[in-house]
């Protein structure tokens, strides 16, 4: 009730009048403005005695004067009604706030106990729900409602609880700790640290205890009392939510929504008609799939032809396989280098130089920032030694990636270790 009144009750300052419609011709606008001015003028000069009208005044002038006085009366009456309504609402607001504070104070002891209770207690939600609501609402409502002022959604920093929780720790360190705890909690909730094993009930309860520790042990002492539906759910309903819906990753629509970006170009090619755009997008999508398949097939055929040609021309590799870089050519014929490598290895299964790897001289590579001593790192003499470099590399790490700190357990030998790309900037 308090929230509803707090949201919808008028404030101490009145809202500005609604803006006039921007559209419309100037004549009508000027007419309406003139009418408004005519209606406002008598209200402003209402206490003043009416001007003495000449006896030969026309009937029209009398009509205008009557209309002005009636409009002034209507405005005054409207102001009176609004003032009385505001007074009633303010009285009801204060009464409701005081009443809610009375109710809250009944559970105040429970709230304080809950705030100071062990964070690793049971993760069922009923008692914690009331405790959280009371603990979150008490200072905000009670402190200001007792002073007879309107309650505001302003956090109050409780230095005593902060001292009790963190001692003499600097505030910025405590805030950093808060973020660390939140990151750990989020990692456990979303299970995005390469943990693909299903969450057990014990794990869910552990996550619930972690959420409770985050709210009561870190969030409330640092940020003050917080009344929020999200915090309440985080504190009281995490375990139930996990039991019903699984890990939060299952409810994350980010991956699906990320696909909208890919379909945006296709959608822009449609007519935008609600009945037709789906079919049009499907047609465009199928067409692009066919084109991609055709290009992949052509690329595979070209690779087959390229491999065959390299085998046949293996002897030509020695012509360009030297260490000197061709003058004015930063990208020598890679086919020759590839053939040289292929002839040296004599086996197609052995690693070969990727065709897209650009060849640069070591001196040119050393001109880049931070690569002055690249020749020493590679163990080659400075000069025109050709080095083939790639822009990016995709590899599967040979070891299981362990992340998320000690609280995140990664099963050994997880077959779902993703392939990640190491992408280098620049276009070497």
């Amino acid at each position: 009730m308090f929230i509803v009144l707090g949201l919808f009750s008028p404030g101490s300052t009145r809202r500005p009048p609604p803006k006039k419609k921007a559209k419309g011709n100037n004549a009508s606008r000027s007419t309406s403005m003139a009418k408004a001015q005519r209606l406002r003028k008598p209200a402003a000069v209402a206490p003043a005695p009416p001007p003495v009208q000449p006896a030969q005044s026309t009937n029209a002038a009398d009509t205008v004067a009557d209309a002005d006085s009636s409009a002034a009366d209507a405005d005054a009456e409207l102001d009176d009604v609004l003032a009385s309504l505001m007074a009633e609402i303010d009285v009801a607001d204060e009464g409701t706030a005081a009443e809610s504070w009375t109710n809250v104070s009944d559970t105040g002891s429970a709230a304080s106990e809950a705030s100071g209770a062990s964070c690793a207690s049971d993760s069922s939600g009923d008692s914690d729900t009331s405790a959280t609501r009371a603990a979150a609402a008490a200072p905000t409502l009670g402190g200001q409602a007792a002073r007879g002022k309107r309650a505001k959604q302003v956090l109050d920093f409780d230095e005593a609880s902060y001292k009790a929780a963190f001692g003499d720790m600097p505030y910025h360190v405590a805030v950093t700790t808060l973020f660390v705890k939140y990151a750990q909690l989020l990692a456990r909730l979303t299970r995005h640290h390469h943990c693909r094993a299903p969450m057990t009930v014990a794990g869910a309860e552990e996550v619930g205890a972690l959420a409770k520790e985050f709210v009561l042990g870190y969030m409330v002492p640092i940020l003050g009392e917080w009344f929020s539906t999200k915090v309440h759910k985080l504190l009281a309903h995490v375990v139930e939510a996990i039991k019903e819906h699984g890990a939060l990753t299952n409810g994350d629509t980010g991956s699906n929504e990320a696909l909208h970006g890919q379909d945006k170009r296709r959608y822009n090619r449609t007519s935008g008609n609600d009945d037709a755009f789906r079919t049009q997008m499907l047609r465009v999508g199928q067409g692009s799939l066919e084109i991609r398949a055709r290009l992949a097939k052509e690329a595979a055929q070209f690779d087959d032809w390229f491999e065959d040609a390299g085998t046949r021309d293996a002897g030509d590799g020695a012509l360009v396989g030297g260490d000197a870089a061709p003058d004015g050519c930063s990208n020598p014929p890679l086919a020759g280098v590839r053939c040289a490598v292929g002839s040296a290895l004599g086996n197609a299964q052995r690693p070969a130089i990727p065709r897209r790897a650009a060849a640069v001289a070591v001196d040119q590579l050393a001109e880049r920032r931070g690569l002055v001593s690249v020749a020493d790192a590679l163990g080659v003499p400075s000069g025109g030694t050709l080095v083939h470099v790639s822009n990016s590399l995709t590899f599967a790490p040979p070891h299981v990636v362990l992340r998320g700190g000690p609280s995140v357990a990664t099963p050994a030998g997880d077959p779902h270790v993703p392939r990640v790309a190491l992408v280098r900037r620049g276009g070497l």
Partner: protein
Amino acid sequence: MYRGLPWYDGVAFRLSDDGSAVVRYGMARAIIRAVGGKVREEVVVSEMRICESTPGCPLVGAGCTRLCWSMEPGADWPSLRSVPFSSVLRLEHIVRDFDQVTQSHGVAATPRTIRDNAANRRSARFHVNVFFPWP
């Protein structure tokens, strides 16, 4: 994102003569596929080393290793090392230590506003972001 792919330069690697508990860090500078016409699959990294941390730092306590550039005395740039692909353990999200940035250069400073010279590179500190949500 770089052309639809994540863009990571930080790597964790372990050399062949290191123990199983040793993890080294560095920033990839060049991906080498061949040297002198011979296949050599290596990554040239600017070496980083684990450095001191503020006592009680919550990030370090959570597992975020604090790093700094590994620079020889008198050198202007971090030392380079060529690491074979097989020695790269994983990619790392290595971020600048903003506490050091603000303490050394003011609260309005950012890594981009800091003058890029040898002295600032020596004093730069980094953190391994263990909370990064890898795909």
